[in-house]
């Protein structure tokens, strides 16, 4: 298995010497726990208008066999430790009202499908899962809000996302979502910072290529929050957005900012049709 991976890296370098072709994702298929088949490639959404070619790919397809293996079995997936803790939080009373999540909700299963449809517009505001969780904590439980990228928050985001695992990403981009989607799209193509790099420079124009030893993916968010080996914990979408923009030597946006909500919607829409993999494992 290691030889195959080494060959494909060499091949990608050689391929680019000859012609600027995309080395691309590998051909592995993702079946979790030996039974749950994931759609890791599918037809690109129409709104992309061919910008990434015909096909969108999960980030899983760009990882080495060893990293991929960590997502094949829930026992081997370190993210599940944090999901386990979230199940405890779900049942734990917190705040002034003496309530837990379980006081109102039968169980996490009740949220099947929710993550696949987020972000979405509610009462004129673009809402992501962290907003919904902290909203319920404040209004129903009388509890302190969780920090955006805290492991308690992202554990709960992962637990709720897990209920949609295997369902296709399906965010709405028209109607009242349209202005937010347009804002996110403009951000996606803005070349930020002193390095002047947009999301598209790496994840649209150069997916499949190598930046140093990083095999660039399409930057899909269908597996978030992901267990990132680098930080050895669950990483939120907004945290990853912030990291990428910071690495362009730019002044970044804050986690939980309206800008990142809009970007979250736009990036999610680029993955419409891929399976929710939450919680995925990435490098």
């Amino acid at each position, binding site marked *: 298995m290691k030889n195959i991976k080494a060959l494909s890296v060499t091949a990608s370098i050689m391929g680019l010497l000859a012609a600027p072709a995309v080395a691309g994702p590998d051909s592995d298929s993702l079946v979790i726990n030996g039974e749950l088949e994931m759609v890791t490639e599918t037809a690109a959404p129409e709104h992309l208008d061919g910008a990434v070619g015909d096909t969108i790919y999960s980030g899983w397809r760009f990882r080495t066999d060893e990293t991929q293996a960590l997502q094949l079995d829930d*026992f*081997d997936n*370190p993210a*599940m*430790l*944090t999901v*386990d*803790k979230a199940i405890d939080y779900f049942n734990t009373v917190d705040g002034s009202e003496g309530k837990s999540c379980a006081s109102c909700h039968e169980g996490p299963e009740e949220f099947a499908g929710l993550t696949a449809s987020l972000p979405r517009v509610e009462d004129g505001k673009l809402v992501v899962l962290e907003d919904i969780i902290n909203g319920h904590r404040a209004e129903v439980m009388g509890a302190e809000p969780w920090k955006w990228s805290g492991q308690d928050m992202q554990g709960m985001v992962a637990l709720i996302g897990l209920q949609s695992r295997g369902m296709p990403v399906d965010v709405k981009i028209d109607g009242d979502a349209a202005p937010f989607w347009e804002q996110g799209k403009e951000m996606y193509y803005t070349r930020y910072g002193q390095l002047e790099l947009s999301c598209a420079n790496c994840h649209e124009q150069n997916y499949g290529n190598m930046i140093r030893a990083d095999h660039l993916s399409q930057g899909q968010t269908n597996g978030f929050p992901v267990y990132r080996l680098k930080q*050895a*914990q669950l990483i939120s979408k907004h945290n990853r957005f912030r990291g990428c923009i910071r690495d362009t030597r730019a002044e970044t946006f804050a986690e939980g900012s309206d800008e990142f909500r809009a970007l979250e919607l736009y990036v999610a829409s680029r993955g419409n049709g891929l399976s929710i993999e939450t919680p995925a494992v990435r490098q």
Partner: protein
Amino acid sequence: MADGVKPRVKVPSKAAAGEAIVIKTLISHQMESGQRKDSDGNVIPRSIINRFTADFNGQNVVDVTLEPAISTNPYFEFEATVPESGEFTFTWYDDDGSVYTETKSVETS
């Protein structure tokens, strides 16, 4: 005790007597290496799980010494022989003196 340490073990609940079975274990733990510094430049003291043992009905399967180079959330996979019905005991020893245990019963046929 380190915050929120949670063990997970995967053991088949049934096995043929004398059969080799695969066991996987995972425990949530930062495994602070003692090599990192905080934002003020102070070394963060080492705090790891330094030993892990697996026993079945009082007999040892594996006894592991861990160093800081074991990753966050230590993972082990190994094979055990189950001579008769009984119980596995898994034990993790923390630098801070905490001991975490988990047990799993196996029925032989």
